[in-house]
């Protein structure tokens, strides 16, 4: 492991507060890229993005270029986007479908599983030239749960199931089972965002119940105006909704007790009753009445998986750190296989209302992140507080710890995981 280059993790991350430098310091950022994004598990995409052999997406892992591709045998591959000859990128489209990857520089051609198939004029290489050893390099660990693909550049990382834990795997099951066929369709495109702020501002915000009534005041006002229903109490300190720490820094925002399908039920944005009925019948046939009720009660719930995945009902997200003050976020609004077209169409319309660069909600989050990065530059009192609800945490029967929806349990559990991974001699 790298030496810690003089980073005093115990001082920077305390049980009740964190220091500005964890969001602003370049040395700490580089160490995060190594310890968290290189040595640990990160989310890289969903199998539903690349359903057909030859389908590919460009991705990055720890800022390195990788190709997320469905190979000729139907398997999912993560290949380094680097020709093994002289390092040219072999894939230059963001996405598409190709039968192979051909390096444009000297014509080396690689099969979809990375195998080197063609070397032009190969007779001029020396006798020990071993084509079979020169396939595109595969990311050493790639594992999936219900189509959600995670990967690590560290061959010795723990099994994915140990990183996720049973509670997170259940949450991913609950997302996939929103489809009557138990699978999601991720072919409806992406929103891709950037902001001038640290990646962990998005992390903390992804599961922050406290901010909704203030950051998203205009959205709440519009809901109230259109429906007469006031969503603000759902994210007030009196709401019965809970934040759960699921272990390893993962968190759940659980508003199932409210049994509301989110706070974004604008008129015209929910499916017609007929289509909804068909969906409900298909869900009950697939999962039974009790589980269907449970799954649908969770539609306003959120999930965060350390370090770079979140889910918010209509979509899931991938966070990509670029620099201490530069972050990219991809949103994947997804469709439910086996649901009526009308249900899926309305899922996209609900998503667009709030999310994306021109949406009426998330744009304010991004603005807040950028203002946050400005504020973090003030050094007289360099601490951010994490104490809300610390004395009111509850141990739950399923093994999670919970707090009221506006409490800061999520921040505390995320920072505890961060500290564990960034601490002296830590291994993923």
């Amino acid at each position: 492991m790298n030496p810690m280059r003089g980073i005093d993790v115990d001082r920077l991350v305390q049980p009740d507060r964190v220091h500005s430098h964890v969001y602003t310091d370049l040395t700490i950022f580089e160490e995060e890229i190594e310890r968290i994004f290189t040595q640990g598990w990160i989310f890289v995409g969903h199998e539903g993005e690349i359903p057909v052999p030859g389908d590919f997406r460009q991705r990055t892992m720890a800022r390195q270029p990788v190709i997320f591709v469905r190979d000729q045998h139907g398997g999912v591959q993560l290949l380094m986007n680097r020709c093994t000859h002289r390092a040219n990128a072999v894939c230059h489209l963001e996405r598409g479908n190709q039968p192979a990857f051909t390096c444009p520089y000297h014509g080396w051609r690689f099969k979809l599983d990375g195998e080197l198939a063609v070397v032009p004029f190969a007779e001029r290489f020396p006798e020990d030239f071993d084509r079979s050893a020169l396939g595109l390099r595969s990311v050493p660990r790639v594992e999936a749960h219900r189509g959600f693909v995670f990967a690590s550049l560290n061959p010795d990382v723990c099994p994915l199931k140990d990183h996720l834990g049973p509670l997170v795997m259940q949450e991913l099951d609950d997302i996939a089972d929103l489809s009557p066929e138990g699978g999601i369709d991720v072919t409806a495109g992406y929103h891709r965002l950037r902001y001038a702020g640290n990646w962990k501002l998005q992390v903390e915000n992804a599961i922050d119940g406290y901010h909704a009534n203030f950051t998203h005041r205009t959205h709440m006002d519009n809901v109230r105006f259109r429906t007469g229903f006031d969503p603000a109490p759902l994210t007030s300190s009196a709401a019965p909704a809970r934040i759960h720490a699921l272990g390893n820094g993962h968190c759940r925002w659980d508003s199932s007790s409210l049994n509301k399908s989110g706070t974004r039920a604008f008129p015209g944005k929910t499916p017609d009753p007929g289509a909804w009925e068909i969906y409900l019948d298909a869900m009950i046939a697939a999962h039974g009445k009790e589980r269907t009720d449970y799954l649908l009660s969770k539609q306003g719930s959120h999930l965060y998986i350390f370090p770079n995945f979140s889910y918010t009902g209509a979509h899931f997200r991938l966070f990509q750190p670029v620099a201490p003050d530069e972050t990219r976020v991809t949103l994947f609004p997804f469709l439910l296989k086996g649901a009526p077209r009308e249900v899926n169409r309305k899922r996209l319309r609900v998503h667009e209302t709030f999310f994306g660069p021109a949406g009426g909600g998330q744009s304010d989050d991004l603005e807040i992140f950028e203002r946050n990065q400005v504020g973090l530059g003030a050094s007289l009192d360099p601490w951010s507080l994490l104490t809300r609800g610390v004395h009111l945490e509850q141990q739950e029967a399923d093994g999670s710890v919970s707090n009221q929806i506006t409490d800061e349990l999520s921040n505390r559990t995320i920072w505890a995981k961060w500290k564990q991974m960034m601490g002296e001699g830590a291994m993923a």
Partner: protein
Amino acid sequence: MTIMLERPHASLRERVADFLFDEAEIADAHRYEDWLGLWGQDAFYWMPCNDDDIDPDMHVALIHEDRMGLEDRIRRLSSGFAHTQQPRSRISRVISHIRCGELEEGLVEVRSVFNLTAFRRDRFEIFAGRQIHVLRPVENRFEIVRKTVYLVNNDGYMSNMTFLI
């Protein structure tokens, strides 16, 4: 949509150009209610995401709004609590290459390009693309029935884009 534009009619072209310039001036000045007033009741505003040639129904868009969505957008921007436009961006846009043709039922299709410079909090941003308006003559003015905006960077990582385009 595959419509063969007829040979532009000189006076029609002047009138639609004036309309686009008015719209640009109103949007640059953040005159939200005036901008909303340009749209018909059956308005559809579409800004595709990832590609120009996508299915408006089953592919996510940057903006996919009917009249009600536009009203909600304007109410939000006018409230003073849309943080992303507090302070507002300063904007200047150029509209060019205006061509038009008449559709059925008196509607007019107008194709143009735009180049927009926005400045906010010490940062310049450029937005550019082409746009297609479908306009309906109403008395002696036009109203927008449909507007589609194809940004050149609709597949890129984007910062907030919450002023009027």
